[in-house]
């Protein structure tokens, strides 16, 4: 009966990878059910929340329960979600030995994140292009690029030290606002608003909002609510970060930005 415990283990591991890297609840649940069914699990039940998986499976008429709680996802890695998705398609078609599936999951877990310089470039480019998109000019493009580079360095370090998410967003927003302010004072920037809006984009709760909607749509109201509150709090902390720097500049330094 070693085999059947492995089915549960496999499904839970796959679900864990999906959830950690930012998949919506419905996908996690569906993928786990597909995997379990493909390996002939009986009485497989699973309940998924944004930060936990509860799964059970019958074995010789006895219920075995596995419960798993994982940390709220730290970073989004869509590549891993894609890989698990591909694996589950293969499993559903059959012909994937259990051992192989476990090895594949282990490999997916190890898919690396991009190196810091690459992440900085991506973050900088994203910020810069969005500054343009919202009506900035080329000077704003370069200021937002610099702000994005610095922001990613901070986010990288914050992630490494497991800094509180609210604080991270707040400080991140304050950081890019300060960079934008300095750019304006140096006379490099053209429109401070555009620089700030462009470079807070990496912080903006676009993901939380989108996932909340996906969860609501699939009737996972509880998870949707959790993500909606997440989006709201992220939004508030960004606003506070930006506001704090603007307020500090005008009240203490006497600079009208």
């Amino acid at each position, binding site marked *: 009966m070693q085999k059947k415990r492995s089915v549960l283990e496999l499904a839970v591991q796959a679900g864990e990878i999906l959830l950690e890297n930012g998949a919506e609840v419905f996908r996690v649940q569906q993928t786990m059910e597909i995997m379990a069914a493909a390996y002939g699990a009986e009485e497989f039940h699973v309940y998924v929340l944004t930060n936990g998986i509860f799964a059970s499976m019958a074995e010789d008429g006895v219920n075995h329960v596995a419960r798993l709680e994982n940390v709220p996802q730290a970073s989004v890695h869509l590549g891993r979600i894609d890989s698990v998705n591909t694996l589950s398609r293969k499993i559903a078609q059959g012909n994937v030995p259990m051992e192989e599936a476990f090895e594949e999951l282990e490999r997916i877990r190890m898919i690396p994140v991009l190196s810091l310089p690459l992440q900085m470039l991506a973050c900088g480019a994203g910020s810069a292009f969005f500054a343009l998109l919202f009506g900035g000019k080329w000077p704003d493009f370069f200021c937002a690029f610099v702000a994005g580079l610095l922001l990613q360095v901070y986010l990288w370090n914050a992630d490494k030290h497991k800094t509180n998410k609210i604080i991270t967003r707040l400080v991140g927003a304050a950081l890019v606002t300060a960079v934008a302010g300095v750019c304006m004072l140096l006379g490099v920037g053209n429109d401070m608003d555009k620089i700030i*809006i462009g470079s*807070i984009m990496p912080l903006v709760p676009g993901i939380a909002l989108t996932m909340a*909607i996906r969860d609501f749509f699939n009737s996972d109201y509880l998870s949707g609510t959790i993500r909606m509150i997440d989006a709201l709090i992220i939004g508030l902390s960004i606003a506070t970060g930006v506001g704090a720097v603007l307020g500090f500049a005008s009240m203490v330094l006497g600079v009208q930005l």
Partner: protein
Amino acid sequence: MTFVDYLYQLFVSFWGTVAFGILFHVPPKQYVACGLTGAAGWLVYVAMMQAQPSTVMASLVAVLPLTALARLFATRRKAPITLFLLCGIFPLVPGAGIYYTAYYFITGQTTQTMIKGTETIKIAGALALGMVLVLGMPSKLFQPFHKAQEPTK
């Protein structure tokens, strides 16, 4: 807006979306699809803003083709729709709204704060509504034509 302006908007929104795709570790072979999804939504948004002044209305209309395209890519390229939807929606997310709300709040312009705050919430709602509308369409519409296969996830 001239044709060149639209090309410029296409270029900028495409690369902006791709940059975020890279940041979220989208597999490289999906970069172009992500960029196209984001650019499609943004171009419709820009065109809508030319036709009428409401950002909420423009967001609602823009998210429709965006989500449809994301579904199409998901089915055709056998990848989770999340990949395309998450990156593609970024240009429409009310980041500017959040910023202006905070700015007016700090500078003590209460009326402006309320206006911008409400608008931001409305845009988020419009994005939600539009997405749900397209996601609720029968999946048959998004199947590739050449072969029958298992339903999209």
